[in-house]
């Protein structure tokens, strides 16, 4: 087990280094000249060159990368081109709101997805299953920025129950969480429904029924328990992805988290901030994947890491 964990951590580090190289190449090696953008159109070539030197953009790309990684290991993600403050200081204030939003979205997905998954599994192939599954498909297909805006207009403006965007507590969290919940719940619904239908055909379920156990007991005690394993796995990976993927929700609801920071940085061509947010979001995804892998062993005793 210990050797497995160490091996997985090693792999995760390699993945992160790979991501850093790709992101760096994409952002820094493009033919555009950040120095010219920063200096503005009236700047003299000397000024542009001075900025280039100050930012180290005159160095070969591999040297720039090593320098960046050297600084990164010391906790220095560079300085924002636009705001001249350290990228770390910009990111640090944004992690809390993003975690809050991701958690809210995640809970809403589960709250909508799991009961509907159970319901459709129990009523598989009936009209209500078909209707709910079709609606779920619509849910998956809805762009979050569109749905978010509609919810804002209806429940923030026309019937002003909730705030018109902004970062805050539960009150501010409800609309973005519902938006993401509607679009994300469908995955849980489909996953849980299919695994439950699978489990329902197992011998032990038939035995439970034969013993005269109530339908409720069969479903919740025998079927759901076993069917939840892949759902838990998916939920683990999902929270990592959510932490990295709430850019659109944050932008739509003006939620001042990491996603919004990344969005603004992209608009501003603020490369160090884009790089910093990309790396950190990649860390979230990789770490949660790693945790899920490790957790397998604890959740499902059939899995061994020898």
């Amino acid at each position, binding site marked *: 087990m210990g050797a497995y964990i160490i091996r997985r951590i090693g792999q995760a580090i390699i993945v992160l280094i790979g991501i850093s190289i790709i992101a760096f190449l994409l952002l820094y090696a*493009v*033919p*555009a*000249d*950040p120095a*010219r*953008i*920063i*200096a*503005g*159109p*009236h*700047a*003299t*070539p*000397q*000024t542009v060159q*001075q*900025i280039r030197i*100050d930012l180290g953009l005159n160095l070969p790309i591999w040297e720039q990368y090593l320098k960046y990684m050297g600084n990164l290991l010391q906790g220095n993600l560079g*300085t924002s081109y*636009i*705001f*001249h*403050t350290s990228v770390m200081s*910009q990111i640090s204030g944004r992690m809390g709101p993003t975690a809050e939003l991701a958690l809210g979205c995640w809970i809403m997905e589960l709250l909508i997805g799991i009961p509907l998954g159970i319901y459709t599994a129990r009523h598989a192939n009936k009209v209500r299953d078909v209707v709910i599954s079709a609606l779920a498909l619509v849910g998956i297909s809805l762009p979050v920025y569109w749905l978010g*805006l509609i919810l*804002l*207009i209806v429940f*923030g*403006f026309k019937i*002003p129950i909730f705030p*018109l*965007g*902004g*970062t805050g507590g539960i009150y501010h969290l409800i609309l973005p969480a519902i938006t993401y919940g509607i679009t994300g719940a469908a995955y849980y619904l489909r996953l849980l429904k299919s695994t439950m239908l699978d489990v329902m055909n197992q011998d032990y379920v038939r035995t439970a029924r034969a013993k005269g156990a109530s339908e409720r007991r069969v479903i919740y005690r025998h079927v759901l328990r076993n069917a939840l394993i892949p759902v838990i796995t998916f939920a683990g990976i999902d929270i990592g992805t959510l932490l990295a993927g709430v850019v659109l929700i944050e*932008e*739509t*609801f*003006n939620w*001042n988290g990491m996603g*919004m*920071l990344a*969005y*603004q940085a992209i*608009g*501003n*061509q603020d490369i160090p901030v884009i790089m910093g947010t990309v790396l950190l979001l990649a860390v979230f995804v990789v770490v949660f994947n790693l945790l899920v892998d490790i957790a397998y062993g604890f959740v499902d005793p059939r899995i061994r890491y020898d």
Partner: protein
Amino acid sequence: MSVSWKKGLATVASIGMVGVLLAGCGTNSTSTSNGSSPSTGSNSSSSKPIEGGSITVDSTQAVPDLDPAIAFDTTSAEVDESVYETLITYDKNTYTITPDLATSWDVSPDGKTYTFHLRQGVEFSNGDPMDASDFVYEFQRLLDKNMQPKPSPGSQFFMDIEGAQAFYDGKAKTISGVSAPDKNTLVIKLVKPEQFFLKVLAMPFASAVDPAFVKQVGNAAMDTTKAMGTGPFEVQTNNQNETVLVKNPHYWKKDSYGQQLPYLDKVTINVNNNSTVDALHWEQGQTAFMSPWLIGGDGIPTAQFPTIMNSPKYKNMVLKQDQNSIYYIGLNMKPVLNGKPNPLSNVKVRQAMEYAFDDSQFVKINNGAVLGLNQPLPSTMEGYVKNLDPSATYSLNISKAKQLLKEAGYSNGLTVDMWDENNDGAKKEDQAFQAMMKQIGINVVLHEVTWKDFLTKAMSGTAQVYQSGWVQDFPDASDFLDTLFNSDQIAAGNNMNNYSNPQVDQWLNQAEYSTDAAQRDKLYAQVINKVMSDAAWIPTIQNIGYYCVQSWVHGFYTSPVTYDPFGSIWVDPGHNS
């Protein structure tokens, strides 16, 4: 001031573009939304202003730079004008230069020496006294190419000051042409007379800053979180979520009733990326006004434009102002481009494209919220030519366009590459342009890239056809014509279509340093006619800025040149936000 793209794009209001509004020369062209009522130019009230209260406004962009030496974008300028002050400024909604920190000034007969007499008893918001040496210090910051975190993007505007180049090059420790003979006198000597020099000085770059404060906090903090000016407000908070301005207790200015300015205790600029939600905030009454300089360059977001403009409820709350920003399709004139012969080097091909262009389609795409344009100057700018020469005038004429292409030897058509930024507004216009050119057999291949990549490509002078724009730095024809058509601007990346005509260069250089206004107008008219008969650009549209101002907000006015007047706004009681 700068190359710009427009409408709904964060970059517009972020980098490399300080926009300044513009109305008719010395007149007030602001009108209410239906355009029929006489213009008031302001949301004014005859009653006595009330002190106190606070307002909130939304901005789609955070304030990138607080330091007036560095700030070069509309959002930063919006704040800087309320925090810092310059020697002179503009009188409300006109082009008229009025005193600000200088009470008066003298210009020597040769037009080269300016002596400013400063207002006495002015203090920075920390109580430090302001004097002439503060301006000397600011000029040195403006011309310090090694300034950290970055040098001033405005240094080029001040290079005609005596000794500026030597100081910039590190060959002198002071700027010989800027001196403070005493605390209340500032003398600026120019190498050559510049008729528009006062307009250059009215830009926020040359603001009074407190040297002791700058040395204490450092340039980086000065630019991001700490500001110290003599203006009506001081910065309490500045981050990517909000900027909070509070009343400067040391402010010198009083209104005509003898009341201390500013009226408001606090202004909160709330950063909200989603312009549609910004408009909903305004409709709910949460924000005091929407302005083009805060809401993504539009004022009223495209989605809500028809609703707001057609609503009787908002009829008296909408103000509009023609802007000194123009857009155009540049036609690269270089004979060999990217290693291949360039058909656009043939004037007939360019003229054919002019005849095939229909600006009414661009106006339609923009909800009718812009004006058509037929020359490289906005209609509200002094120097605009009302009646262009016939050779410089183009109207939609497909058969003439085809004939010109035939004469140029392209009767079977040709293919050109067009570069633009990848955003919705640009896409619609590019596709319309593509369809227009298709009618005469010109196949336009679109390359829609990021703003950064677009700028790099266009400024290198290698984009064959491109869509771009220009927003004034200061209200003078030279800022458009000299910057965009002088051949010495090719290397600087401003003259992006490689327009080079020795005669035009001569006219431009002569006009740049002429002190005779009539002669300048004449020279600029010659330039415009020549450039248009050469079909260097296809001018497309001119922007109109739309403002939505709550009825409980008073003292608001739109300006030809300056930004939103937080310093003169007051609100009805009970409207704190």
